[in-house]
C-alpha cells in the first residue's frame, strides 16, 4: 500500500472478479474530486469518441445483468414442478423451464464474451489515445512546468491516473449499472412474487447502511494516520538509502535505526487498526446475509404452511435474499472507487488544461543561415515576482565572439541562457538574434540556432552513438566519431567494451560525471549551430582535458558565437569578453586583461583564488 508519490507500475495479474466493493481499500480516504459533475461530463465526452462501441458494450452489460436476474426466477420456478404430495414431476413444464434456464445461461455466455472483448479493446485504445494526447500536451508545455513540478507526480498522472480513467471508471460504471439493474430487477421480481417476503429481504438495506457507516467512521481516521506514517517512513527510507555513505561516515547507523523503529511502530499501529476495522465488513455482511436468509425462511415457512404460498416461490426468494445484499455492498464500494478515479481524472485534466507555450506569431520569420549576433535590450526577468533575477540587462554580442558569464551561484547566469533559448520569455525588454526579436522568430528555426551543453548532463536510453547523434539525427557514424574526437570523448569511448555501441541510460551510472559531460559536448559539436552555449559544461572534467576541448572548440567556433558559464576562472580567462553578473545586473564587462586592470569584482575573484593562505 505504498501510495503517495510512489510510481505504481505494477501490473494486475489476471483476476476473474470485477472490482467488487469488498476490499479494505474502499474505506481508505481517497482524494475527493473538486468538480465531480464537470469531470464526469468530460470523461463522458471522451467516451463518446468511441460512442457507438461503448454504448453497445454497455447495452450488452445491461442485458447480461437482466439475464442474471432472470435466472434464479426460472430456477425457482422449476421447483414448482415438483409435486410433494404425489412425488411426481411435471415433466413438460420442467423441461420447458430447464430449456429456458439453459438458454439464458448460453445467452449470457455469448453476451458476456462479446461485451468483454469489446470493452477490453475499447478501453485499451482509450488509454492509448489518452496517453498519446497527454504526451503531446507535455511536449507543448513551457519549461516552467517542468521546473516547478516533481517528475514523480507527472509520471504518476500519465500512468496511474490515465489508467484509472479508462479501466476503473469504465469497469466500475459497468458494474454499477449491472448492480443497480440486479437490485431493481430482483426487487421487481420479488414484489411480483410476494410483498411480505420482499419486505423481509429489504430489511438488509438499513442493516448494510448502518454497518458501512459504522465501519467507515471508525476506520477513516486510522487510514489517515496510516497514510501519514507511511509518507514519513517512505521519506526516511529514501533519504537514508540515498545518503547511506554519509550515515556510515558519521556513524549514525544506530541512531537512524532507532528513529526508523519509532515511525515503523506508529505505522504498524495505525495499519493494524485500519485493517481490523475494515476487516469487520465481510464477516458482518455475512451475518446480515444469513440473518436475512433465516428470516426469509422463517417467514416463508409461515406463509407456505399457513397461507399456502408455493414452495418454489419460497426457494426463489431464498436465492434472491442471498443475491440482494451483495450488489448493495458493491454499490456502496463502487461510489468510492469512482470518486477516487474522478479525482485522478481531474489530475489528468489539470495538465491537459495548462497553458501551452505561446504559439508562433502569425508573421513569424524563419531565420535562414543565422549568423549569431545576440543583443539583450533592457531585459527584466523574474521566476517569482518577489525576487527579480535580471534587472534591466543590456548587452551586445557580435557573431563569432566568445563571451563568458561569471558570478556567484544564483546571480542569474543560467537565466541568461534560459531567456536566450526562449525556455522562458522576458518580462520586459527585448532579445534580438541577427536583429530579429526572438518572439517573432519561429520556435523551430530559433532552436536550430543553438548548440547547448547544460549544467545537468542528460543521456537517453540507447547507445552512445545514438546519444551523440541526438542533436542531428541524420549524421553519419563518421561525423559522430569526429564530433566525439573534438570533444575528447573518443578515447574513453574506445576503451569501453562495446565502444560506441555501449548502452547507456539516464539512471544507471556506468559512466562518470566527467564522461557524461564529454558526451554532451560531443552532441553539441555535432549539431554545429551558430551559437554555442556551455553552461558549466566542463565542471566535472579535469582542467587539462577542458583546455584541450576549448582549444578544439575554438577552431570550430571561429565564426560562431559562444557563451561560456563557469565557476572555474581558468575556464573562462581566454574568452573575448567576460561579463560579471551580480544582483541581476552586469557589473563589469571586458577582456581578462581589461578587468584585471580595472581591479574590480573580477580582479578580487581572481586574486582570492590565487592568494596563498596559511600560517605565513
Amino acid at each position, binding site marked *: 500500500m505504498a501510495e503517495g508519490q510512489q510510481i505504481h507500475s505494477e501490473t494486475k495479474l489476471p483476476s476473474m472478479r470485477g472490482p467488487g466493493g469488498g476490499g479494505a481499500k474502499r474505506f481508505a480516504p481517497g482524494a475527493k474530486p473538486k468538480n465531480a459533475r464537470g469531470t464526469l461530463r468530460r470523461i463522458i465526452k471522451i467516451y463518446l469518441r468511441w460512442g457507438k462501441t461503448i454504448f453497445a458494450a454497455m447495452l450488452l452489460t445491461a442485458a447480461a445483468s437482466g439475464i442474471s436476474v432472470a435466472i434464479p426466477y426460472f430456477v425457482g420456478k422449476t421447483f414448482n414442478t415438483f409435486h410433494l404430495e404425489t412425488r411426481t414431476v411435471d415433466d413438460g413444464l420442467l423441461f420447458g423451464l430447464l430449456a429456458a434456464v439453459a438458454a439464458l445461461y448460453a445467452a449470457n455466455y455469448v453476451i458476456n464474451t462479446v461485451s468483454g472483448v469489446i470493452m*477490453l479493446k475499447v478501453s485499451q485504445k482509450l488509454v492509448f489515445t489518452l496517453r498519446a494526447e497527454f504526451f503531446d500536451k507535455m511536449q507543448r508545455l513551457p519549461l516552467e512546468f517542468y521546473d516547478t513540478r516533481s517528475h514523480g507526480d507527472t509520471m504518476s498522472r500519465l500512468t496511474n491516473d490515465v489508467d484509472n480513467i479508462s479501466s476503473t471508471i469504465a469497469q466500475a460504471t459497468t458494474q454499477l449499472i449491472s448492480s443497480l439493474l440486479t437490485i431493481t430487477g430482483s426487487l421487481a421480481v420479488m414484489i411480483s412474487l410476494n410483498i411480505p417476503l420482499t419486505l423481509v429481504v429489504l430489511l438488509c438495506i438499513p442493516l448494510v447502511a448502518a454497518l458501512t457507516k459504522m465501519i467507515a467512521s471508525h476506520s477513516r481516521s486510522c487510514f489517515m494516520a496510516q497514510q501519514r506514517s507511511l509518507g514519513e517512513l517512505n521519506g526516511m527510507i529514501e533519504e537514508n538509502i*540515498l545518503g547511506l555513505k554519509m550515515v556510515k561516515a558519521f556513524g549514525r547507523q544506530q541512531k537512524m535505526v532507532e528513529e526508523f523503529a519509532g515511525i515503523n511502530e506508529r505505522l504498524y499501529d495505525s495499519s493494524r487498526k485500519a485493517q481490523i476495522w475494515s476487516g469487520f465488513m465481510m464477516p458482518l455482511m455475512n451475518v446480515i446475509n444469513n440473518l436475512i436468509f433465516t428470516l426469509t425462511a422463517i417467514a416463508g415457512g409461515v406463509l407456505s404452511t399457513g397461507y399456502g404460498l408455493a414452495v418454489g416461490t419460497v426457494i426463489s426468494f431464498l436465492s434472491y435474499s442471498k443475491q440482494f445484499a451483495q450488489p448493495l455492498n458493491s454499490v456502496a464500494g463502487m461510489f468510492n472507487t469512482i470518486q477516487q478515479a474522478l479525482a485522478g481524472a481531474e489530475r489528468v485534466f489539470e495538465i491537459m488544461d495548462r497553458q501551452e507555450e505561446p504559439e508562433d506569431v502569425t508573421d513569424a520569420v524563419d531565420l535562414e543561415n543565422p549568423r549569431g549576433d545576440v543583443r539583450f535590450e533592457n531585459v527584466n526577468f523574474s521566476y517569482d515576482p518577489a525576487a527579480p533575477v535580471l534587472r534591466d540587462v543590456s548587452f551586445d554580442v557580435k557573431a563569432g565572439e566568445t563571451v563568458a558569464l561569471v558570478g556567484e551561484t544564483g546571480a542569474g547566469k543560467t537565466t541568461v541562457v534560459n531567456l536566450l533559448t526562449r525556455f522562458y520569455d522576458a518580462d520586459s525588454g527585448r532579445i534580438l538574434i541577427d536583429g530579429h526579436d526572438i518572439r517573432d522568430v519561429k520556435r523551430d528555426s530559433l532552436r536550430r540556432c543553438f548548440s547547448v551543453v547544460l549544467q545537468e548532463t542528460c543521456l537517453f536510453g540507447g547507445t552512445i552513438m545514438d546519444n551523440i547523434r541526438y542533436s542531428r539525427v541524420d549524421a553519419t557514424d563518421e561525423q559522430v566519431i569526429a564530433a566525439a574526437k573534438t570533444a575528447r570523448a573518443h578515447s574513453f569511448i574506445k576503451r569501453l567494451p562495446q565502444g560506441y555501441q555501449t548502452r547507456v541510460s539516464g539512471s544507471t551510472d556506468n559512466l562518470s560525471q566527467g564522461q557524461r559531460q564529454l558526451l554532451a559536448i560531443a552532441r553539441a559539436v555535432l549539431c554545429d549551430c551558430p551559437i554555442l552555449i556551455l553552461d558549466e559544461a566542463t565542471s566535472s572534467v*579535469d582542467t587539462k582535458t577542458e583546455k584541450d576541448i576549448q582549444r578544439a572548440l575554438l577552431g570550430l567556433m571561429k565564426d560562431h558565437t559562444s557563451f561560456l558559464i563557469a565557476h572555474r576562472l581558468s575556464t573562462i580567462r581566454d574568452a573575448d569578453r567576460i561579463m560579471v553578473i551580480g544582483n541581476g545586473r552586469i557589473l563589469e564587462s571586458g577582456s581578462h586583461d581589461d578587468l584585471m586592470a580595472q581591479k574590480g569584482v573580477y580582479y578580487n575573484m581572481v586574486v582570492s583564488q590565487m592568494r596563498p593562505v596559511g600560517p605565513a
Partner: protein
Amino acid sequence: MGIYKKYFNRYKIPFIVAVICVTCEAVCDLMGPTLMARIIDMGIEKSDMDSVLHWGLIMLAVTAAGACFAVARNILASNVSQRMGADLRYDLFAKIMNFSEAGADRIESGSLITRLTNDTSQVVQFVNGIMRVFLKAPVTCIGSIVLASMLNLRLSLVIYGVVAVVAFLIAISMKLSYPRFSMLQKSMDKVNSVVQEYLIGVRLVKAFGTYDEERGRFKTANEDLMEKGIASQIIITYIAPLLNLTVGVGTVLVIYIGSRMFGSSMAGTGDISAFTIYMAQILNALLIITNVFNTFVRTKASTARIREVLDAEEDFSHMGDVKTLKGDIRFEHVSFAYPGGSGDPVLKDLSFSVKRGENLAVIGPTGSGKSTIAWLLMRFYDVDDGRILLDETDIRELDTDAVRGNVALVPQKSMLFSGTVADNIRWGNSEADDAAVRDAAKKAQADFIERMPYGFDSMLGSAGVNISGGQKQRISIARGLIKAAPILVLDDATSALDAVTEARVRQQLAAMAGKHTVVMVTQRCTTAMFADHILVLEDGVNMGYGTHEELLNTCEIYREIYRSQVESEKEA
C-alpha cells in the same frame, strides 16, 4: 520461504489460532446450505413450522459462531501480519544501514527503496491473506464437495464434473496468461523509462527541437503497451464467461437429474436447491484460489528480492582496536578495483604517506581515482593488495566505527538530511552546543544561514526550504568541521563555491593545520598549491609527490595542469 521462519516462530501461536479460526469459519459457512436444505425439506415442504424455527435458530447460531470466528481471525490476522511486516521492515532497514559499500553498490538504491516499501507490503498482504481467505477457499471448496456428497452422493457426480471443468479452465487461463503478464510488465517499464527520460531531458528536447523523435519513441512504447495490455487480458475475457456457463450447465443438470431422482424419492427439493448453492460456492472458492496463486507468484518474486537484501554482505566487522588516532596516514602499495565494476583497478600500487597535522592535496584528471582514496580512508571498501595504515596500524585491524569516528568526510556530492540546519551540522557531533554549531558554520563561510527565515532552525529537505548547491556544500563542510576528527577529508568539496568564498574556506582550513591531518581532493591547482604536499594521480598511479615548487620542476603532468589553469593560452 526460509527467511520467514524466524517470524513464523515468533508469532506461531496467534498465527495457528487464526488459521484454526478461519477453518472453523469456513465450516460454519459450509453448513449454511445444508441447514437451508433442512429448513426446506423438513420444514417448508412438510409444512412443519416447528422445524423451520428449529433449523432456523440453529442456522442463526451457526452464523453467529461463524461471525465470532471471523472477528477473532480478523483481529489476529491484522495483528500478526502487520507486526510481521513491521519486523521485516525493521530488519531490512537495519540490515541496509549496515550494508558493506560493495553490497550497497550491487543493488541500485531506487530498487532498495521499493524492496523496503512495496515488497514488504506485498508479503504483509500475502500473510494476511493466508489467515483471511486463502485457507478458507480451499476448505470451502473441499467442504462443499464433501457436504454435497454427504447430502446426495449420486447427485454430487454432477458437481465433480463441474469442478473438474472449472479447474481445468482456470489452469489453462493461468498458464497462458502469466507469460503475457510479464511481457506487459516489461512494456510498462518501457513506457515509464521513456517518460522519465523525457522529463529529465526536457531542456535538451526543447533545445534541439527533437519533438518528432520523442513522439515516435513514446508512440512505439505506448502501442506496445496497448497490444500487451489486450493480449494479457484477452484469455481471461474469453474464459470467465465460460466458467459461468459451466456452472449454468451444472445447475440445469442437477435439477434435471434431481427431478428424475425425486420421482423415486432419492432426492428432496431442499437437496437440489442446496446443490445449486454449493455449486456457486465452489465456483467462488475456485476463483479465490486463482487469486491466491496470483498473489503467491507475486509474493515469491518479492521474497526473492527481500532475500537478496537480507543475504547481502554486511559491513566490515566492528571488532578490533578502538582508539583515538593521531592522524598519520600511510598507503603501502595499494591496489584496488571496485567490486562489481569493470574489474579494472582504480588504484595501482599506490604508496604515499601523510604525517599528523600535515595538509595533503590530491590532484589529477577525471577518473584518476582521487575520490577512491577518500572512500578507502573511511574503510568503505578493503584494498585488494597492499595496506593502508593509520597511526602505523593496518586499517583492517581497527574497529570500523572507530576508523570512521576518526575521519571526517566532506563528500563531493553534499548529502543533507531533512531536519533543521543545526540538526544537519550536528551530524558531525551530536553533543555540540549552539555556540559550536555557529562556530563551525562560520568557519565554513555559511553566513547565509543567519539570513534564512528561521536561521539555524530552518528546515531542510522535502518539508523545508530549498538551498543552492553552494549553500549545501558549505553546510556539509560545517558538518565535517564540527566533528573535529584527527583526519579531515575534503573530496572536491568546494566545487560549487565561487572563488572568493572558496578562498575564505581554504584560509580556515589552513588555520586548522598542525592539529588535524587534512586530505583535500581537488581539481583546482590554486587549491592544491598551498598544501604541504601534493599527490598527482593519473589512472590510479602516483605520478608525482612533493611540494608545489618541487612538482613544477619535476612532474610534467602537474606542470601541464598548472599551466592549463593559471597561465592563459594567449600568454603561453
